[in-house]
């Protein structure tokens, strides 16, 4: 029963999370902490901290963590499946729709409006991350090093992240 409830609660969170990541945290708070009483606020804060520093979508990380706390490994898996189910279904439906109208002039016009907006959204994400990431001279130097590695040395983005992590561990610790 707890597994079913975990699945349903996280499906609800997944369904109403627009804009990814941080947008879902208030939803988890109201559904999981106040609604179900499955977590304390203190535990929730820990989860957010973990989700921030581990790879993967914050929604997925939080779901896995809460599920694990409540019902072990199986709980972690079930909660994660719950949180991604609505996205998978909705994105598939949109993808099928886009495929069906692939050659329509209407869709081409829709795309012509959406494409520049998407570029703006990515720029907005860079600004949002920059606000917490570029806080002092050291972090700006790290950004400059990363830019050098990416644009001049032409390293793979994943290698740039790994090197930055290593440098960070040496410089900031």
């Amino acid at each position, binding site marked *: 029963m707890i597994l079913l409830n975990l699945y349903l609660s996280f499906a609800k969170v997944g369904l109403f999370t627009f804009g990814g990541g941080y947008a879902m945290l208030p939803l988890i708070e109201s559904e999981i902490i106040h609604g179900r009483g499955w977590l304390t606020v203190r535990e929730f804060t820990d989860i957010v901290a973990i989700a921030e520093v581990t790879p993967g979508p914050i929604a997925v990380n939080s779901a896995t963590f809460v599920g694990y706390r409540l019902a072990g490994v199986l709980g972690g898996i079930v909660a994660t499946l719950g949180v991604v189910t609505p996205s998978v279904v909705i994105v598939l439906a949109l993808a099928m729709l886009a*495929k069906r109208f692939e050659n329509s*002039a209407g869709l081409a*016009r829709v795309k012509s*409006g959406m494409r520049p907006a998407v*570029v703006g959204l990515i720029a907005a994400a*860079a600004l949002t991350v920059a606000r917490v990431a570029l806080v002092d001279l050291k972090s700006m130097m790290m950004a400059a090093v990363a830019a050098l590695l990416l644009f001049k040395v032409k390293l793979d983005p994943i290698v740039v992240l790994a090197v930055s992590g*290593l440098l960070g561990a040496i410089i900031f610790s």
Partner: protein
Amino acid sequence: MDSRFATDCESDEGRVPETGVPPKASVAALFWTFFRIGAFTIGGGYVMVPLIQRDIVERRGWIDKDSFVDVLAIAQTAPGPLAVNTAVYVGYMLRGIRGAMASAAGCILPSIIIILVVAALFDQISSSNYVQAAFAGIRPAVVVLIVSAAIKIGRPVVRSRVELALAAAAMVLVAFVRVSPALVVTAAAAYGLLARSTADNGGKDA
């Protein structure tokens, strides 16, 4: 997504019937590609935009630049994690439902494995100075990666003054006014559909 897909692909019942040309990405390749991306998506969905672009658009050539922008538009309009949405859409485009499932599974599996390990060792890990310091080093790099993605994706897309204005408006609305990205994409889509001036531009995509 056109003639470049029409190669080396054996018949596959998992494929969508509407797909006129069979994609060349195998289901296993999709899984591993998104597994690799999922393992390095630190600090939220946008980090994976440059990673996916590098792997899937530039290196493997599975989808072209314009289609990638459309994928991002849909991924941000639908609810749920951006990374998962993008994986599902790319997987579906290349290999139908099975591709979507494989990509989604690849994308979330690293998180599940890591979080389960972290949950078991939580206290040791969260108090480690080295872990904290490593992430302090990664965050500035993330900014650079996202900026580079915006430039690469923006170059072919933002060509006119109207398009630049749309991009700038979207950025300001989301970053400063805190409007939901889904709402911004939907409004931009409606604008594109209704605005006469962009009709000829849209014709290029068809």
